[in-house]
C-alpha cells in the first residue's frame, strides 16, 4: 500500500467542486476496485478557538483532552480527498454513511499534535448495494491512540440480499425498550452551524433546497453531529479507553424534536439511541463499551 503525506489539509472548496464534477459524465470511467493507498497528514495542532466552537455546537465540555470524536472531524478533508480522487470507484456524492465506530485507546491531550492516516477497505456487497469502510488512524508520534471506522453504502448495483451488514444492528425492539433520558429540539439551521465548525458542507445538511436536489424533503442533521451530541451527553459516563459504535438509521429531517434514549449495559458501558419524539422512528443506534 502506498501512502501520500500531505503538507497541509486539502481545501474543502475544490474538493466539493471535484465531488460535484464526479456526478457528471466528465468524471469518465471509474475503476471497479478500491485503490489500496492511504493519505496522511502529520503533526496537526489543535486550534483552541476552533475546538471551543466545535464544543459549543456539539455540547462537549472543553477539557484538556479532545472530544473523542474530534479527530474524526479533523480527518474529514482527508476522507474527501480519497473519495473525490480519480481512482475512487464511486462518486462521493450519493454515498450514505451507515455506520461509525471509534476505538479510543487513550484520551488525546489538547496540546498533543496528532497525525492522521486514512485508507479505504476493499468493496464488499451490502443488502442494498455495496459498502466500504474508511479507516482513520490517529497517532501521537508513533503511538496509535485512536481508530475511527466510517462505513459507507453505495445504493444500487452489486447488492446481495444476504450480505452481512458490517457490524450489525441492534434488533429494533431492543432500541424501542431503551428509556428516553433527554429531549432535544434541533433547529433548522443545525446543518449550517455544524458545517461551520466541522468544515463538512455536504449540501444535504445545508438548506432545504440543496437537500431536495438529493432527494430529501428537508435538510437533514449530520450523522456525526448526532453522534457527537450523544457522546457529549454521556461523556463522563464512559471509561478513558473505550469503543463507541453507531448505526445511522432514518435521517433526522430538520427542524426536529428527537429524544436520546440510553441505559447502562450489564457488562459495562451504555446502550443508546436517538429516536423521533412523536413517532418513535429510530435515527441512530449506539453502544459504548469499555476496552
Amino acid at each position, binding site marked *: 500500500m502506498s501512502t501520500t503525506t500531505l503538507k497541509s489539509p486539502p481545501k474543502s472548496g475544490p474538493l466539493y467542486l471535484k465531488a460535484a464534477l464526479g456526478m457528471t459524465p466528465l468524471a469518465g470511467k471509474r475503476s471497479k476496485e478500491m485503490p489500496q493507498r492511504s493519505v496522511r497528514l502529520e503533526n496537526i495542532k489543535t486550534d*483552541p478557538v476552533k475546538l*471551543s466552537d466545535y464544543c459549543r455546537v456539539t455540547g462537549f465540555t*472543553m*477539557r*484538556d483532552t479532545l472530544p473523542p470524536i474530534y479527530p474524526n472531524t479533523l480527518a474529514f478533508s482527508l476522507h474527501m480527498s480519497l473519495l473525490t480522487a480519480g481512482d475512487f470507484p464511486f462518486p462521493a456524492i450519493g454515498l450514505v454513511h451507515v455506520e461509525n465506530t471509534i476505538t479510543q485507546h487513550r484520551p488525546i491531550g*489538547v496540546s498533543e499534535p496528532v497525525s492522521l492516516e486514512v485508507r479505504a477497505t476493499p468493496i464488499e456487497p451490502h443488502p442494498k448495494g455495496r459498502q466500504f469502510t474508511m479507516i482513520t488512524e490517529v497517532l501521537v508520534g508513533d503511538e496509535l491512540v485512536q481508530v475511527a471506522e466510517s462505513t459507507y453504502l453505495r445504493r444500487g448495483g452489486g447488492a446481495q440480499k444476504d450480505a452481512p451488514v458490517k457490524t450489525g444492528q441492534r434488533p429494533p425492539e431492543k432500541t424501542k425498550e431503551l428509556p428516553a433520558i433527554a429531549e432535544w429540539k434541533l433547529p433548522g439551521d443545525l446543518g449550517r452551524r455544524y458545517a461551520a465548525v466541522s468544515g463538512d458542507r455536504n449540501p444535504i445538511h445545508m438548506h432545504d433546497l440543496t437537500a431536495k436536489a438529493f432527494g430529501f424533503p428537508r435538510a437533514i442533521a449530520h450523522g456525526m453531529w448526532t453522534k457527537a451530541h450523544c457522546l457529549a451527553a454521556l461523556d463522563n459516563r464512559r471509561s478513558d479507553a473505550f469503543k463507541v459504535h453507531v448505526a445511522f438509521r432514518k435521517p433526522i429531517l430538520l427542524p426536529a424534536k428527537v429524544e436520546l434514549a440510553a441505559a447502562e449495559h450489564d457488562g459495562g458501558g451504555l446502550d443508546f439511541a436517538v429516536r423521533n419524539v412523536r413517532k418513535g422512528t429510530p435515527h441512530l443506534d449506539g453502544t459504548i463499551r469499555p476496552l
Partner: protein
Amino acid sequence: MAAKTAKAPAARPVWVIGGNRIPFARSNGPYSHASNQDMLTAAVDGLADRYGLAGERVGDFAAGAVLKFARELNLSREVVLGSKLAPETPAFDVGQACGTGLEAAIVMANKIALGQIDSAVAGGSDTTSDAPIELNEDLRRILMDANRQKSLQGQLKTVLPRLRPWMVKPEIPVNQEARTGLSMGAHTAITAKEWGITREAQDELTFNSHKNLAAAYERGWQDDLITPYLGVEVDGNMRADTTIEKLAKLKPVFGGKEGTMTAANSTPLSDGASAVLLSTEEWATERGLTPRARFVDAETAAVDYIVKQEGLLLAPAYAVPRLLKRNNLALQDFDFYEIHEAFAAQVLATLKAWEDEAFCKQRLGLDEPLGSIDRSKLNVYGGSLAAAHPFAATGGRIIANLAKMLEEKGSGRGLISICAAGGQGVVAILER
C-alpha cells in the same frame, strides 16, 4: 410514646486532603473561549484523577463564580454532572465575591465537622474573557413591561414609544462598588494613601510574589497542585525574570499621578478554576489517602466602607483578631501566612493596621496591637500578584498550597486571609 430527642453527632476534625487547579491565565488569553463550567470541570476532573474520586459520591460540592451568566444558576451541579464525580453528588453555588472559594470550603468543612457529610469538594472558577454581557437595562425593563401586556397592540404601545437608539448598547460588567461608584483599585489607592504605603514596599512585595512562585515551579512544587489546561502548564501572569528596577519603571494606574499602585502591584483580570477535597480522617484512610492539614476554624468579617470610611479591603484586619481570640492564638503563632494579594497595598495596609496601636485599640477594641509578622513566612510559594486572581478560584489555590506547605513541614499552623468586594474579609486557620 416516650419523648425522644434526636442526637446529632459531635463536631469532628476536618482535613484538607489536597487540591487541584488549572494554571491561571491572563484575561483574553489562552482560555478566552473556555466557560466557567469548562474550567471548573477540568479542575474537578483533575482532582478526581489525583485522589481516585471517579464514580465516587462525594458528600457535597460547593463552588461559585463571581462573574456568571443567569443561565448558570446551577453551575456547581452542572459541573458535577459533566465531571468524573458520581452524578449522585449534590452541589450548590456559593457567592461571596473574591471570598467565594474560601467561603465554599468553610461551608463544606462545617458540614463535615457537624457529621452531616464525610467528604466534600469546594471550588471556584472565574473568567473575565467569557464574561456575561447583558441586555441594556432600560430595554430589558421595557421588554418585561411588554411581556405583561395581553395583546399585541398593547405590547407595541408599551415598546415603541419608549425605544431609543442607544438601547442597543449592552450592559457590561464593571469592577465597581455599587454603593460608592469607585473601582476596587480606586478604593485601595485611598487606603494606600491613608496608611502611607510606599511604592517601593509594594514593588518589593510584588517582586517576592513572582520570585517565590517561579521558585515553586522551578522545583516542581506545583506538580501535585495543578493539571494543565488547553496547552497551558504555568500561570500566564508569572514573570520569573522581573526585577525591582523593571517594576519601578511602571506608571501608576490608580490614585492619580502621585499614585503608588501599578499594573504590576495590582492583580490583573484573569481566568481560571480550582477545587479542594475535604474529608474526615476516617474517610481518607478508607481510601488510602493521606490528609495534608486540618481545617481548624474560620471567620468572616465585614466593614462599613461607606459611611464609616473603613478601607474597602481591610475587613480581614477585623476577622483575624476575632479568629485568634476564639482559638486562643497570637498573630505570631503561625508558621505561614497566606494573605491574598489583591493589591500589594492592601496586604501592606492590613499588616500595618495590625501593628498600629490606635487602630487596634479604637477600631478592633484590643488592649494592645496584634504586632508584626515575620515577613519571610508570608506567601512563601507566591501569591495572587504572580499567579493572578480569577476571583472565585483564589480560595482553592491558597487552601491547597497551605495544606501542602504544612504537610511538608510536618507540623505547624497557617493563616489564610482573603479580602472581598463589598468590604468583606474571609479568614481561616489550617494546622497539622
